[in-house]
């Protein structure tokens, strides 16, 4: 046995394993800043946004002032933060609501990243500084009514017509679509998959909002309809020439989800711990029943595991060692864990757990979108299975 000279610090229920000690001062300050923003600007209002199925447009400007939008990109007004810092921000945003994190993911990791990685200098100059400030909103159109997990089967087509391109097709389930100033639209061409920047108001382009959602309600989800949309060749992302273009963006966003899911789970755990200590049944706080304690213990374990996994992927990414398959494992594990935590927390809250007065059912419902978008859990399991066996089971 080895004797330790310094005493272990006191246990903190909201950071059981003292994962904080693995962060730098700067990372903590970034995390605390986003956490404070979420506590003040999101948490008190998001139940209402969810109920009314909206997200205020000004929130994007406020997030821009914080430099959260495209924070992991460099230049063009972006903060140039580390992947770990970006992850920490996603965790705090999603502890507020998956819809808010989605706004940031789609803006920064899908739309801005697509332009930053595959765009021309003119496209970057035109869009990135305004998008970083939240003055312009972007969306990312890959999924179609008949092409979800298999985006290679997309039907949206762009054909050359002299110096111009003509786009026809329909995109589905596009986050931020109706509020976007620019849509990154992926289309099949004779030369392979290409990306196009479609500004709001381009003739033939509309983005009707999708209603009747029971998940991610504090987020705008839309169709993109492209009916003989004419674009100059300068609207094409010149560096993207295959499906690798959109997939590279998705990988960025998924990485943020690995962290975000841990945040949503943490928020549910915190709500359940609080509730169980004050809710009296059978003359005692329900926290004094073993069944409840067992649930809390399992939830806390999942939250801490998820956070450690996210942090590990963050460190790998900052070291340039992160592979797509790692991100698949992170998304599969953390979103599934978060769903279990949310469902368990929901039960601990009894009937109160089904209302928007508490955050849990909102998170629970949101996570049903999170487990589906950016590659379903099944698809990520297949990616991992493929990596383990060398056998692709997709088709």
């Amino acid at each position: 046995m080895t004797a330790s000279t310094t005493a272990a610090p006191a246990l903190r229920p909201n950071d059981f394993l003292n994962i904080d000690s693995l962060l730098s001062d700067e990372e903590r300050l970034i995390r605390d800043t986003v956490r404070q923003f979420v506590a003040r600007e999101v948490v008190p209002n998001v139940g209402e946004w969810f109920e009314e199925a909206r997200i205020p447009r000004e929130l994007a400007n406020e997030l821009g002032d914080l430099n959260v939008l495209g924070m992991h990109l460099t230049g063009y007004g972006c903060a140039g933060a580390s992947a770990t810092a970006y992850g920490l921000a996603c965790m705090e945003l999603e502890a507020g609501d998956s819809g808010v994190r989605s706004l940031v993911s789609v803006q920064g990791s899908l739309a801005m990243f697509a332009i930053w990685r595959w765009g021309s200098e003119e496209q970057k100059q035109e869009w990135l500084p305004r998008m970083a400030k939240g003055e312009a909103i972007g969306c990312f159109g890959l999924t179609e009514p008949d092409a979800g997990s298999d985006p290679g089967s997309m039907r949206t087509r762009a054909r050359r017509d002299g110096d111009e391109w003509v786009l026809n097709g329909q995109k589905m389930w596009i986050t931020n679509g109706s509020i976007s100033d620019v849509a990154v639209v992926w289309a099949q061409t004779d030369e392979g998959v290409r990306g196009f920047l479609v500004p709001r108001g381009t003739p033939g382009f509309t983005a009707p909002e999708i209603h009747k959602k029971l998940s991610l309600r504090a987020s705008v989800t839309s169709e993109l309809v492209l009916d003989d949309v004419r674009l100059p060749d300068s609207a094409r992302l010149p560096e993207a020439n295959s499906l690798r273009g959109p997939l590279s963006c998705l990988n960025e966003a998924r990485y943020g989800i690995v962290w975000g899911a841990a945040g949503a789970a943490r928020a549910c755990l915190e709500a359940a711990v609080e509730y169980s200590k004050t809710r009296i049944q059978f003359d005692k706080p329900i926290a004094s029943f073993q069944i409840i304690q067992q649930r809390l213990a399992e939830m806390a374990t999942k939250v801490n595991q998820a956070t450690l996994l996210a942090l590990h992927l963050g460190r790998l990414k900052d070291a340039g060692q992160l592979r797509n398959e790692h991100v698949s494992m992170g998304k599969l594990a953390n979103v599934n864990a978060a769903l279990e935590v949310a469902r368990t927390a929901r039960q601990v809250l009894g009937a109160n757990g089904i209302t928007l007065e508490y955050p849990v059912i909102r998170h629970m419902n949101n996570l049903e979108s999170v487990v589906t978008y950016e590659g379903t859990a099944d698809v990520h399991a297949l990616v991992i299975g493929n990596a383990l066996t060398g056998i692709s089971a997709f088709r």
Partner: protein
Amino acid sequence: MKICVLVKEVPDAAVEKRIDPSTGRMDRSGEKNLNPYDTHAIEAAMQLKEGGALQVDEIVAVTMGPESAVRALHKAVSLGADRSIHLTDAALAGSDVAATGYALAKALEKEQPDVVLLGQQSDDGECYTIGAVVAEHLKAPSLTQVIKLDVVDGGLRCERQAEYGYDTVQVSLPAVISVGDAINEPRYPSLKAIMGAKKKPLETASAADAGIDASLVGGDGSRVQCGEFKAPPAKAAGTIIEDEDTDATVEQIVAWLDERKLI
């Protein structure tokens, strides 16, 4: 002109404060943060700078404290200060309020600020006095508990929160002004500012560098000698009244107050 903002590292508000039985002093271990009141002082400095009525060339954050206090300076700089000064020396440890105020005043003398801003109280010591002590040493007017600051006639018009109401005081510069948390809503530091904080100049000064007479600071130089510290008695559990029917709730509250002859 130059504004100096005094800032302090304190235990984070979320950390439960307790007396360390081995030293008899407040246990200052654990999570620390920039004193929340000081964030209001920095914001006040930023608003003076951005307001444009005064030509503010520089905002300098100044702290006295151990090595870890650098983090409070980083935060102060991320909130807008242009550079920072860390007064740190083993000889300063254990200084009481008078000694701390003297030491800070010496550090400020070198800077010759036109305005010194600080939070009216620290989250740990809660003495409310550093501003007055610093002002005394700098021979500058002292205004405390200020909740409104306007530039009028080249000086500052301050609204003070007093026991009996509000004082409006016109002060010429230089002046030392401690602010309350009602003065403003501090901005969030942007991520760029947080990431840039380490790149802004930070000067470390010893007691000798600041021209401090070592016999006037530290535990020995302090005139306050602390005997025994005791934790306050635990508060009795309150009564929680569930608001099911507002009329009934009001009746219960009135009855409760009446019983205690409070109304």
